[in-house]
Protein backbone atom coordinates (compact mmCIF):
# COMPACT_ATOMS: atom_id res chain seq x y z
CA UNK A 1 0.00 0.00 0.00
CA UNK A 2 1.41 3.37 -0.89
CA UNK A 3 2.51 6.08 1.48
CA UNK A 4 -0.44 8.34 0.61
CA UNK A 5 -2.90 5.65 1.64
CA UNK A 6 -1.05 5.26 4.92
CA UNK A 7 -1.16 8.98 5.62
CA UNK A 8 -4.85 9.11 4.71
CA UNK A 9 -5.63 6.13 6.98
CA UNK A 10 -3.65 7.48 9.93
CA UNK A 11 -5.39 10.84 9.54
CA UNK A 12 -8.84 9.25 9.62
CA UNK A 13 -7.88 7.01 12.51
CA UNK A 14 -6.48 9.87 14.57
CA UNK A 15 -9.70 11.80 14.02
CA UNK A 16 -11.99 8.89 14.93
CA UNK A 17 -9.85 6.98 17.44
CA UNK A 18 -12.52 7.28 20.12
CA UNK A 19 -14.56 4.63 18.31
CA UNK A 20 -11.83 2.13 19.14
CA UNK A 21 -11.25 3.50 22.64
CA UNK A 22 -14.93 3.10 23.50
CA UNK A 23 -14.99 -0.53 22.38
CA UNK A 24 -11.76 -1.19 24.30
CA UNK A 25 -13.34 0.37 27.37
CA UNK A 26 -16.06 -2.28 27.35
CA UNK A 27 -13.79 -5.23 26.56
CA UNK A 28 -10.64 -4.38 28.51
CA UNK A 29 -10.55 -4.37 32.27
CA UNK A 30 -7.25 -2.53 32.62
CA UNK A 31 -5.15 -0.02 30.74
CA UNK A 32 -2.59 -2.53 29.45
CA UNK A 33 -5.24 -4.73 27.89
CA UNK A 34 -6.86 -1.58 26.50
CA UNK A 35 -3.61 -0.60 24.78
CA UNK A 36 -2.97 -4.10 23.50
CA UNK A 37 -6.50 -4.51 22.12
CA UNK A 38 -6.34 -1.02 20.60
CA UNK A 39 -3.15 -1.96 18.79
CA UNK A 40 -4.63 -5.19 17.42
CA UNK A 41 -7.66 -3.22 16.20
CA UNK A 42 -5.39 -0.76 14.39
CA UNK A 43 -3.54 -3.64 12.70
CA UNK A 44 -6.80 -5.29 11.63
CA UNK A 45 -8.22 -2.01 10.34
CA UNK A 46 -5.10 -1.30 8.34
CA UNK A 47 -5.20 -4.78 6.80
CA UNK A 48 -8.74 -4.39 5.61
CA UNK A 49 -8.39 -0.72 4.65
CA UNK A 50 -8.18 -1.59 0.92
CA UNK A 51 -11.77 -2.90 1.21
CA UNK A 52 -12.98 0.41 2.63
CA UNK A 53 -14.60 2.08 -0.34
CA UNK A 54 -15.36 5.38 1.25
CA UNK A 55 -19.05 5.09 0.36
CA UNK A 56 -19.83 4.19 3.96
CA UNK A 57 -18.80 6.26 6.95
CA UNK A 58 -15.31 5.53 8.24
CA UNK A 59 -16.67 5.18 11.77
CA UNK A 60 -19.31 2.61 10.70
CA UNK A 61 -16.70 0.54 8.90
CA UNK A 62 -14.19 0.92 11.73
CA UNK A 63 -16.50 -0.06 14.57
CA UNK A 64 -17.48 -3.31 12.80
CA UNK A 65 -13.86 -4.35 12.29
CA UNK A 66 -13.00 -3.26 15.83
CA UNK A 67 -15.89 -5.25 17.33
CA UNK A 68 -14.90 -8.30 15.29
CA UNK A 69 -11.37 -7.94 16.58
CA UNK A 70 -12.54 -7.80 20.20
CA UNK A 71 -14.96 -10.73 19.81
CA UNK A 72 -13.24 -13.08 17.38
CA UNK A 73 -9.63 -12.23 16.72
CA UNK A 74 -8.08 -10.90 19.90
CA UNK A 75 -6.42 -13.59 21.98
CA UNK A 76 -5.73 -11.63 25.11
CA UNK A 77 -2.82 -9.68 26.45
CA UNK A 78 0.57 -10.94 25.37
CA UNK A 79 2.33 -9.94 28.51
CA UNK A 80 1.34 -9.01 32.01
CA UNK A 81 2.46 -5.57 33.01
CA UNK A 82 1.54 -3.73 36.19
CA UNK A 83 -2.06 -2.87 35.63
CA UNK A 84 -3.83 0.34 36.42
CA UNK A 85 -7.51 0.26 37.24
CA UNK A 86 -9.20 1.68 34.18
CA UNK A 87 -12.09 3.35 35.96
CA UNK A 88 -9.92 5.06 38.53
CA UNK A 89 -7.49 6.31 35.94
CA UNK A 90 -10.00 7.72 33.52
CA UNK A 91 -13.41 8.05 35.04
CA UNK A 92 -12.41 11.05 37.09
CA UNK A 93 -11.73 13.14 34.06
CA UNK A 94 -14.84 12.11 32.15
CA UNK A 95 -17.05 14.96 33.13
CA UNK A 96 -16.41 18.58 33.39
CA UNK A 97 -18.76 18.90 36.34
CA UNK A 98 -17.34 16.35 38.67
CA UNK A 99 -20.02 14.53 40.65
CA UNK A 100 -18.77 11.75 42.95
CA UNK A 101 -22.23 10.12 43.28
CA UNK A 102 -22.67 10.09 39.52
CA UNK A 103 -19.19 8.72 39.08
CA UNK A 104 -19.91 5.91 41.52
CA UNK A 105 -23.06 4.97 39.61
CA UNK A 106 -21.20 4.89 36.33
CA UNK A 107 -18.41 2.86 37.82
CA UNK A 108 -20.94 0.28 39.03
CA UNK A 109 -22.55 0.23 35.59
CA UNK A 110 -19.27 -0.24 33.75
CA UNK A 111 -18.36 -3.00 36.19
CA UNK A 112 -21.64 -4.78 35.47
CA UNK A 113 -21.26 -4.39 31.68
CA UNK A 114 -17.76 -5.86 31.84
CA UNK A 115 -19.17 -8.99 33.46
CA UNK A 116 -21.32 -9.64 30.39
CA UNK A 117 -20.07 -12.00 27.71
CA UNK A 118 -18.47 -10.70 24.49
CA UNK A 119 -21.64 -10.88 22.40
CA UNK A 120 -23.68 -9.10 25.04
CA UNK A 121 -21.02 -6.38 25.26
CA UNK A 122 -21.27 -5.89 21.50
CA UNK A 123 -25.03 -5.45 21.79
CA UNK A 124 -24.56 -2.98 24.63
CA UNK A 125 -22.00 -1.02 22.60
CA UNK A 126 -24.33 -0.72 19.63
CA UNK A 127 -27.23 0.20 21.90
CA UNK A 128 -25.18 2.97 23.48
CA UNK A 129 -24.19 4.18 20.03
CA UNK A 130 -27.89 4.35 19.04
CA UNK A 131 -27.54 1.80 16.26
CA UNK A 132 -30.88 0.47 15.04
CA UNK A 133 -31.74 -3.20 15.33
CA UNK A 134 -31.33 -3.78 11.59
CA UNK A 135 -27.71 -2.67 11.85
CA UNK A 136 -27.15 -4.62 15.06
CA UNK A 137 -28.48 -7.81 13.48
CA UNK A 138 -26.37 -7.30 10.34
CA UNK A 139 -23.23 -6.67 12.35
CA UNK A 140 -23.59 -9.76 14.52
CA UNK A 141 -25.22 -12.05 11.94
CA UNK A 142 -28.34 -12.72 13.99
CA UNK A 143 -31.99 -11.93 13.30
CA UNK A 144 -33.44 -8.54 14.17
CA UNK A 145 -36.05 -10.07 16.48
CA UNK A 146 -33.39 -11.98 18.39
CA UNK A 147 -31.23 -8.87 18.71
CA UNK A 148 -34.19 -7.00 20.21
CA UNK A 149 -35.12 -9.83 22.60
CA UNK A 150 -31.50 -10.24 23.68
CA UNK A 151 -31.12 -6.53 24.33
CA UNK A 152 -34.16 -6.54 26.63
CA UNK A 153 -32.72 -9.52 28.47
CA UNK A 154 -29.39 -7.74 28.90
CA UNK A 155 -31.18 -4.75 30.44
CA UNK A 156 -32.91 -7.05 32.93
CA UNK A 157 -29.67 -8.89 33.60
CA UNK A 158 -27.80 -5.65 34.28
CA UNK A 159 -30.51 -4.47 36.66
CA UNK A 160 -30.31 -7.68 38.66
CA UNK A 161 -26.50 -7.59 38.66
CA UNK A 162 -26.55 -4.05 40.04
CA UNK A 163 -29.18 -4.93 42.64
CA UNK A 164 -27.18 -7.98 43.71
CA UNK A 165 -24.21 -5.71 44.33
CA UNK A 166 -26.30 -3.50 46.57
CA UNK A 167 -27.49 -1.06 43.91
CA UNK A 168 -25.71 2.15 43.03
Amino acid sequence: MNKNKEIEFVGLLEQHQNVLHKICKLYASDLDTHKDLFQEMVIQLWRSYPTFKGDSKFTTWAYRVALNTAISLYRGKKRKITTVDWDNSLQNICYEEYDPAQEEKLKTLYGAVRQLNDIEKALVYMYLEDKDYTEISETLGISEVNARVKMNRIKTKLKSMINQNGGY
Partner: protein
Amino acid sequence: MDGLDLLKQHWKDNNSFPKIQKNELQAMLHKSSSSIVKWIFTICCVEFIVWITISIFIPAEREDFLFFQVADVIYNVVFYAFIFFFIYQFYTLLIRIKNTSNTRKLIESILAVRTNAHNYIRFNLIAAYAAFGIQFIQLIVKEYTHRSSWGEMIFVLVLGSILFTLFGFLFIWLFKLYFKILYGILLKKLNSNYDELIRLEENET
Protein backbone atom coordinates in the same frame (compact mmCIF):
# COMPACT_ATOMS: atom_id res chain seq x y z
CA MET B 1 -34.28 5.57 34.09
CA ASP B 2 -32.68 2.11 33.86
CA GLY B 3 -28.96 1.47 34.14
CA LEU B 4 -28.18 1.43 30.46
CA ASP B 5 -30.05 4.63 29.76
CA LEU B 6 -28.07 6.35 32.46
CA LEU B 7 -24.90 5.07 30.87
CA LYS B 8 -26.08 6.17 27.45
CA GLN B 9 -26.61 9.69 28.70
CA HIS B 10 -22.90 10.02 29.33
CA TRP B 11 -21.54 7.67 26.69
CA LYS B 12 -21.42 10.03 23.76
CA ASP B 13 -19.83 12.87 25.68
CA ASN B 14 -17.12 10.63 27.00
CA ASN B 15 -14.04 11.80 25.15
CA SER B 16 -11.63 11.46 27.99
CA PHE B 17 -9.46 8.84 26.36
CA PRO B 18 -5.74 9.43 26.00
CA LYS B 19 -5.17 10.88 22.55
CA ILE B 20 -2.83 8.78 20.46
CA GLN B 21 -0.71 10.83 18.11
CA LYS B 22 -0.29 10.20 14.38
CA ASN B 23 3.29 8.98 14.69
CA GLU B 24 2.27 6.44 17.34
CA LEU B 25 -0.63 5.23 15.17
CA GLN B 26 1.69 4.93 12.18
CA ALA B 27 4.11 2.82 14.22
CA MET B 28 1.22 0.54 15.26
CA LEU B 29 0.37 -0.26 11.62
CA HIS B 30 3.65 -2.05 11.16
CA LYS B 31 3.59 -4.09 14.34
CA SER B 32 2.99 -7.79 14.23
CA SER B 33 -0.53 -9.07 14.83
CA SER B 34 -1.16 -11.57 17.61
CA SER B 35 -4.62 -12.54 16.36
CA ILE B 36 -6.13 -16.01 16.58
CA VAL B 37 -5.95 -16.32 12.78
CA LYS B 38 -2.20 -15.77 12.82
CA TRP B 39 -1.80 -18.48 15.46
CA ILE B 40 -3.95 -20.93 13.53
CA PHE B 41 -2.01 -20.15 10.34
CA THR B 42 1.31 -20.79 12.08
CA ILE B 43 0.14 -24.03 13.72
CA CYS B 44 -1.34 -25.35 10.46
CA CYS B 45 1.90 -24.60 8.58
CA VAL B 46 3.87 -26.48 11.23
CA GLU B 47 1.43 -29.41 10.99
CA PHE B 48 1.81 -29.56 7.20
CA ILE B 49 5.59 -29.43 7.40
CA VAL B 50 5.85 -32.02 10.19
CA TRP B 51 3.66 -34.63 8.51
CA ILE B 52 5.20 -34.18 5.07
CA THR B 53 8.69 -34.42 6.58
CA ILE B 54 7.74 -37.59 8.45
CA SER B 55 6.32 -39.19 5.32
CA ILE B 56 9.41 -38.30 3.26
CA PHE B 57 12.01 -39.42 5.77
CA ILE B 58 10.49 -42.69 6.94
CA PRO B 59 12.63 -45.34 5.21
CA ALA B 60 10.68 -47.46 2.74
CA GLU B 61 11.50 -51.14 2.44
CA ARG B 62 11.75 -52.62 -1.05
CA GLU B 63 8.96 -55.17 -1.39
CA ASP B 64 9.44 -58.63 -2.92
CA PHE B 65 5.89 -59.07 -4.14
CA LEU B 66 4.45 -57.17 -7.06
CA PHE B 67 1.14 -56.86 -5.25
CA PHE B 68 2.75 -54.96 -2.35
CA GLN B 69 4.85 -52.82 -4.72
CA VAL B 70 1.62 -51.75 -6.47
CA ALA B 71 -0.11 -51.22 -3.08
CA ASP B 72 2.79 -48.95 -2.01
CA VAL B 73 2.54 -46.87 -5.18
CA ILE B 74 -1.25 -46.50 -4.80
CA TYR B 75 -0.81 -45.61 -1.14
CA ASN B 76 1.71 -42.88 -1.96
CA VAL B 77 -0.36 -41.42 -4.79
CA VAL B 78 -3.50 -41.27 -2.62
CA PHE B 79 -1.52 -39.92 0.34
CA TYR B 80 0.07 -37.00 -1.55
CA ALA B 81 -3.16 -36.25 -3.42
CA PHE B 82 -4.90 -35.82 -0.06
CA ILE B 83 -2.05 -33.69 1.30
CA PHE B 84 -2.31 -31.44 -1.75
CA PHE B 85 -6.09 -31.25 -1.31
CA PHE B 86 -5.74 -30.25 2.35
CA ILE B 87 -3.19 -27.53 1.55
CA TYR B 88 -5.42 -26.15 -1.22
CA GLN B 89 -8.44 -26.27 1.09
CA PHE B 90 -6.42 -24.53 3.81
CA TYR B 91 -5.50 -21.71 1.44
CA THR B 92 -9.06 -21.20 0.13
CA LEU B 93 -10.54 -21.22 3.64
CA LEU B 94 -7.88 -18.86 4.90
CA ILE B 95 -8.56 -16.19 2.27
CA ARG B 96 -12.26 -16.37 3.13
CA ILE B 97 -11.56 -15.01 6.62
CA LYS B 98 -12.50 -11.35 6.45
CA ASN B 99 -12.63 -9.10 9.45
CA THR B 100 -15.27 -7.03 7.63
CA SER B 101 -17.80 -9.91 7.57
CA ASN B 102 -20.50 -10.09 10.18
CA THR B 103 -19.39 -11.63 13.49
CA ARG B 104 -21.09 -14.97 12.93
CA LYS B 105 -19.61 -15.41 9.45
CA LEU B 106 -16.17 -14.42 10.67
CA ILE B 107 -16.23 -16.96 13.51
CA GLU B 108 -17.55 -19.65 11.17
CA SER B 109 -14.78 -18.97 8.67
CA ILE B 110 -12.12 -19.26 11.40
CA LEU B 111 -13.67 -22.47 12.71
CA ALA B 112 -13.71 -23.88 9.16
CA VAL B 113 -9.89 -23.60 9.07
CA ARG B 114 -9.79 -25.37 12.42
CA THR B 115 -12.01 -28.16 11.06
CA ASN B 116 -9.72 -28.52 8.06
CA ALA B 117 -6.73 -28.87 10.40
CA HIS B 118 -8.73 -31.39 12.40
CA ASN B 119 -9.42 -33.47 9.29
CA TYR B 120 -5.81 -33.17 8.13
CA ILE B 121 -4.45 -34.64 11.36
CA ARG B 122 -7.19 -37.29 11.37
CA PHE B 123 -6.23 -38.24 7.80
CA ASN B 124 -2.54 -38.51 8.68
CA LEU B 125 -3.24 -40.72 11.65
CA ILE B 126 -5.53 -42.96 9.58
CA ALA B 127 -2.85 -43.09 6.86
CA ALA B 128 -0.19 -44.02 9.42
CA TYR B 129 -2.53 -46.65 10.82
CA ALA B 130 -3.23 -48.01 7.32
CA ALA B 131 0.53 -48.15 6.61
CA PHE B 132 0.98 -50.05 9.84
CA GLY B 133 -1.80 -52.47 8.76
CA ILE B 134 -0.17 -53.03 5.36
CA GLN B 135 3.16 -53.75 7.07
CA PHE B 136 1.44 -56.25 9.33
CA ILE B 137 -0.15 -58.11 6.37
CA GLN B 138 3.23 -58.14 4.60
CA LEU B 139 4.85 -59.66 7.66
CA ILE B 140 2.25 -62.45 7.81
CA VAL B 141 2.71 -63.18 4.10
CA LYS B 142 6.52 -63.30 4.55
CA GLU B 143 6.20 -65.70 7.46
CA TYR B 144 3.91 -67.87 5.36
CA THR B 145 6.19 -67.90 2.29
CA HIS B 146 9.30 -68.59 4.38
CA ARG B 147 7.45 -71.68 5.61
CA SER B 148 7.82 -70.72 9.25
CA SER B 149 6.39 -73.09 11.82
CA TRP B 150 2.73 -72.74 12.87
CA GLY B 151 3.90 -71.73 16.33
CA GLU B 152 5.90 -68.80 14.95
CA MET B 153 3.04 -67.81 12.66
CA ILE B 154 0.50 -67.78 15.49
CA PHE B 155 2.94 -65.80 17.66
CA VAL B 156 3.40 -63.15 14.96
CA LEU B 157 -0.37 -63.04 14.32
CA VAL B 158 -1.31 -62.61 18.00
CA LEU B 159 1.46 -60.09 18.74
CA GLY B 160 0.67 -58.12 15.57
CA SER B 161 -3.05 -58.04 16.37
CA ILE B 162 -2.42 -56.81 19.90
CA LEU B 163 -0.02 -54.11 18.67
CA PHE B 164 -2.43 -53.12 15.88
CA THR B 165 -5.28 -52.66 18.37
CA LEU B 166 -3.08 -50.84 20.90
CA PHE B 167 -1.77 -48.47 18.24
CA GLY B 168 -5.36 -47.81 17.16
CA PHE B 169 -6.35 -46.72 20.67
CA LEU B 170 -3.11 -44.76 21.07
CA PHE B 171 -3.75 -42.82 17.85
CA ILE B 172 -7.32 -41.98 18.86
CA TRP B 173 -6.15 -40.85 22.30
CA LEU B 174 -3.30 -38.75 20.85
CA PHE B 175 -5.66 -37.15 18.35
CA LYS B 176 -8.18 -36.17 21.01
CA LEU B 177 -5.50 -34.96 23.41
CA TYR B 178 -3.77 -32.86 20.76
CA PHE B 179 -6.96 -31.06 19.78
CA LYS B 180 -8.20 -30.67 23.30
CA ILE B 181 -4.97 -29.07 24.46
CA LEU B 182 -3.88 -27.02 21.46
CA TYR B 183 -7.05 -25.86 19.74
CA GLY B 184 -9.10 -26.15 22.94
CA ILE B 185 -7.01 -23.49 24.66
CA LEU B 186 -6.48 -21.38 21.55
CA LEU B 187 -10.12 -21.26 20.51
CA LYS B 188 -11.84 -21.34 23.89
CA LYS B 189 -13.07 -17.76 23.64
CA LEU B 190 -14.06 -18.11 19.98
CA ASN B 191 -16.02 -21.30 20.61
CA SER B 192 -17.91 -19.83 23.54
CA ASN B 193 -18.79 -16.70 21.53
CA TYR B 194 -19.99 -18.83 18.64
CA ASP B 195 -22.07 -20.99 21.01
CA GLU B 196 -23.60 -17.82 22.40
CA LEU B 197 -24.60 -16.63 18.92
CA ILE B 198 -26.09 -20.02 18.05
CA ARG B 199 -27.90 -20.27 21.39
CA LEU B 200 -29.32 -16.82 20.80
CA GLU B 201 -30.79 -17.89 17.46
CA GLU B 202 -32.03 -21.25 18.72
CA ASN B 203 -33.75 -19.88 21.81
CA GLU B 204 -35.96 -17.55 19.87
CA THR B 205 -36.73 -19.47 16.69
